[in-house]
């Protein structure tokens, strides 16, 4: 895998010079434009998967290309190509420029190499370079371990996916910067069967980490054990309750709540357009004083972290909510400029074929004072949700959902029997005001999150301490 400095790597790969970059950026901004950039990307994705007890499929996928963007006011022109030559960049520039009016000052922009200010995932070896045999063996061990753990496990589906991405951004802000972004994820799904009833359990994790991370402390076995336990527990889950009740969320992945309930609503684009339920609430109380929520792209080795965002801005730590008061939005260049707000390093895109927009990185709530036992013990009757599937939000009216995959009843201050998965639904601007206890046990998720917005998927992280929400609607089938 490529270890050279990314800018030199792309120039060499596509037969371009530093001068070509400057010329392209200069000509892109020549009309009455505010900003222009070129984004180069080479992405290699390698996957191996196991089912029916054998590792039977493998894939390796390479995509590369470049996109030219021209921004004028709130207009964006974008063109991309998977053939990268001086000629294709020229055509792309001409296309992207069509949104800007004629009559700007032709000039030249100096594009100087910028240094990365973070080094969050410097690896000895990219996970995609680790020998395939090692990965095959890992998957086989997972299969054996799951079936050995319980004879009710009838099938195991496991996969290891490694991505290696090299990006370069040449910007009319006067810099060119690149990054090498490794990513690995291990996923385990177990199918359990008992008395004709079939259920599944899924668990996994990863990040921008060495492949050996999956093996340290038998982490892969813990993932496997957890997937088996989920599947077995589901075999005995009873109907979930329906209606409004007290809900306790366990630590870690249930932080999906923050991502859906408030995170998207605080992205700059929705607030500039005033279509978010949070529009105009900066400085206002939107959560209980127990809540402080941050988005932090600078955490070493995490799935949601980046050294730079996809516009070349160093990532940062943005306080979204401090002691219940709304403090900040997540911005990309276009929206920060139009709102007169600082860049936060949240301009992200799925690939060279996509236009950047404000996106989250790792979004979590800081720990509070209570213990998990105190929180659960305070609830006479309610739901304890320990693990989630995905979620979704309607930005404009603030309604969000997320699906509890592992949930239990709380009866008399104790977690009792498991119930089936159910959707929880609430209202973003007021759900956090109903948080009455925050635990001292902040956990981040294991590294499995992918966020979709406007057709673009990017890896993200979430985190949460145990919290108590006084009322939330639980969408089970057992009314009353």
């Amino acid at each position, binding site marked *: 895998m490529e270890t050279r400095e990314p800018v030199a790597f792309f120039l060499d790969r596509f037969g371009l010079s530093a001068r070509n970059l400057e010329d392209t950026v200069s000509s892109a901004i020549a009309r009455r434009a505010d900003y222009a950039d070129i984004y180069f990307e080479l992405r290699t994705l390698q996957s191996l998967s196991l089912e029916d007890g*054998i*590792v*039977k*499929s*493998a*894939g*390796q*996928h390479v*995509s590369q290309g470049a996109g030219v963007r021209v921004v004028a*006011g*709130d*207009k*964006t*022109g*974008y*063109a991309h*190509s*998977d053939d990268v030559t001086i000629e294709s960049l020229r055509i792309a520039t001409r296309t992207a420029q*069509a*949104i800007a009016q004629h009559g700007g000052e032709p000039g030249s922009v100096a594009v100087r190499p910028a240094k990365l200010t973070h080094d969050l995932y410097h690896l000895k070896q990219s996970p995609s370079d680790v020998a*395939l*045999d090692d990965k*095959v063996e890992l998957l086989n061990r997972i299969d054996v371990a799951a079936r050995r753990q319980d004879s009710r496990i009838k*099938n195991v589906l496991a996969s290891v996916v490694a991505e290696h991405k090299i990006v370069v951004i040449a910007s009319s802000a006067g810099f060119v910067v690149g990054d090498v972004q490794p990513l690995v994820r291990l996923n385990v799904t177990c199918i359990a069967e008992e008395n004709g*009833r*079939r*259920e*599944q359990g899924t668990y996994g994790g990863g990040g921008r980490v060495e492949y050996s991370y999956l093996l340290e402390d038998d982490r892969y076995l813990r993932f496997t054990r957890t997937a088996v336990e989920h599947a077995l527990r589901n075999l005995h889950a009873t109907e*979930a309750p*329906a*209606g409004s009740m007290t809900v306790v969320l366990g630590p870690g992945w249930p932080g999906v709540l923050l991502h859906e309930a408030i995170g998207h609503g605080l992205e700059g684009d929705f607030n500039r*357009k005033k*279509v978010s339920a949070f529009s105009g609430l900066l400085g206002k109380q939107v959560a209980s004083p127990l809540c402080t929520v941050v988005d932090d792209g600078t955490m070493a080795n995490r799935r949601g972290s980046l050294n730079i965002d996809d516009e070349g801005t160093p990532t940062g730590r943005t306080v979204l909510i401090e002691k219940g008061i709304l403090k900040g939005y997540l911005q990309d260049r276009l929206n920060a400029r139009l709102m007169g707000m600082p860049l936060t390093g949240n301009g992200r895109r799925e690939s060279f*074929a996509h*236009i950047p927009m404000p996106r989250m990185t790792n979004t979590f709530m800081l720990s509070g004072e209570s213990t998990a036992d105190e929180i659960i013990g305070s609830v006479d009757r309610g739901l304890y949700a320990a693990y989630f*599937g995905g*979620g*979704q939000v*309607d930005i*404009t*009216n603030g*309604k*969000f*959902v997320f*699906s509890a995959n592992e949930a239990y009843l709380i009866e008399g201050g104790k977690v009792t029997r498991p119930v*089936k*998965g*159910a*959707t929880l*639904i*609430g*209202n973003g601007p007021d759900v956090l005001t109903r948080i009455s206890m925050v635990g001292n046990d902040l956990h981040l998720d294991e590294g499995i999150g992918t966020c979709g917005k406007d057709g673009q998927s990017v890896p993200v992280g979430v985190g949460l301490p145990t919290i108590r929400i006084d009322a939330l*609607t*639980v*969408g*089970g*089938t*057992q*009314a*009353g």
Partner: protein
Amino acid sequence: MSKELLEGVAERLLAAAKRHGATAADVVVAESDALEVAVRLGGVEKLKQARQKHLGLRAFIGDRSAVTSSSDFSPEALEKLAADSCKLAAILAADPFSGLPETEDLATQIPELDLYDAGVAALSAEEAIDMARQGEQAALDADARITNSEGAECNASTARVLYASSGGFTGSYSSSGISLSVVPVASHNGAMQRDYWYSSQRHLADLENPAQIGKKAAQRALRRLDARQVRTCEVPVVFDPQMAAGLLHHLASAISGYALYKGTSFLVGKLGERIAPGFVTVVDDGTLPGRHGSKPFDGEGLATRRTMVIENGVLKSYLFDTYSARKLGSRSTGNASRSVGSSPHVSPTNFVLQAGSAAPEEIIGSVKAGLYVTELIGHGINGTTGDYSRGAVGLWIENGELAYPVEEITIAGNLLQMYAAIEMIGNDLDYRSSVIAPTVKIGKMTVAGN
């Protein structure tokens, strides 16, 4: 690239795979041109244009196979792709069910299905912007309570797909797509509601009129204003055609050969059983001219066909590609779907719940108290058990009339029970996408609210 050039690339890649030790191989080559424009509050917000190409190779070494893909068509890249594919395949376990389809199963002719419109290819950015403007303007003009907009988008794309295999099949076809969507924001009493409407077709002339789309989007946003929660209850639920299509998506996933052999489908072992009332019929048909889900051959070179999935309430057929069929001792139904970077999987073609006789008003009129669902959010479907729980938006039905908008509620049940509880099917079938249904009434579901 011309058809001949694409064929040349595919031939070279198949030859390279053979040189690197592949005993069989197949290739997918796809290229597309896309134009996307967005307009917001009358001004152009986005103009995006791109040409993309991508190819994928599946190489077999005996009964082991791996897939590689790349957007680089240079001779060196093709050579490396073939080498990588063979190297990857060699490390895998032998799988006796793997392999290309039998030669006698391959399509022998490639029907013309009217999937391409040169008018879509010729659409200029200015024309697309103009359509988006008309759509958004109609929404903004519809009512004083339409106060903002997330904009209107017009997307036009054309694509050519080629599939070739060492088993002796080579085929390609062109297709086009044009869509227009409008997303207005309505506000009243300090609260906002967003909704949308869209039209999507293969042919420009079939696209719904932009002003109509805008007007309909505005009406949908307006009728959501001042929505409230309802009390938790068990009531009949009427799904509008778009939401009813969701119920069909879940059915399509559950009858995929892959979900069945993995045991992750709630329809395992239900073939030949009655799973819905006698008036329920579902057909998968890849041969309908001009439709979204139509294609002249599937992702393995088999002819697409018409498959009766549910006939008079009885589950008649699952959907298979070659691999999943072999795993279950059956035959492919011509439903292999192939994206460039993956092995075949099963997808429906045009998957249609046949229209009934009731007008939608009649169906709503039959409900004393219940929910008319117009939007569902979240992913609360467990494919293994059929358990269903999703966030819902809609209108409350009182004495057969749409009474007031509701939100922040969920609907829950189990898909097996929901299919069995279908009480009425509307006459309002509209081919707006590949998986479609008319209005559907389900006898009873749990609605959770306050």
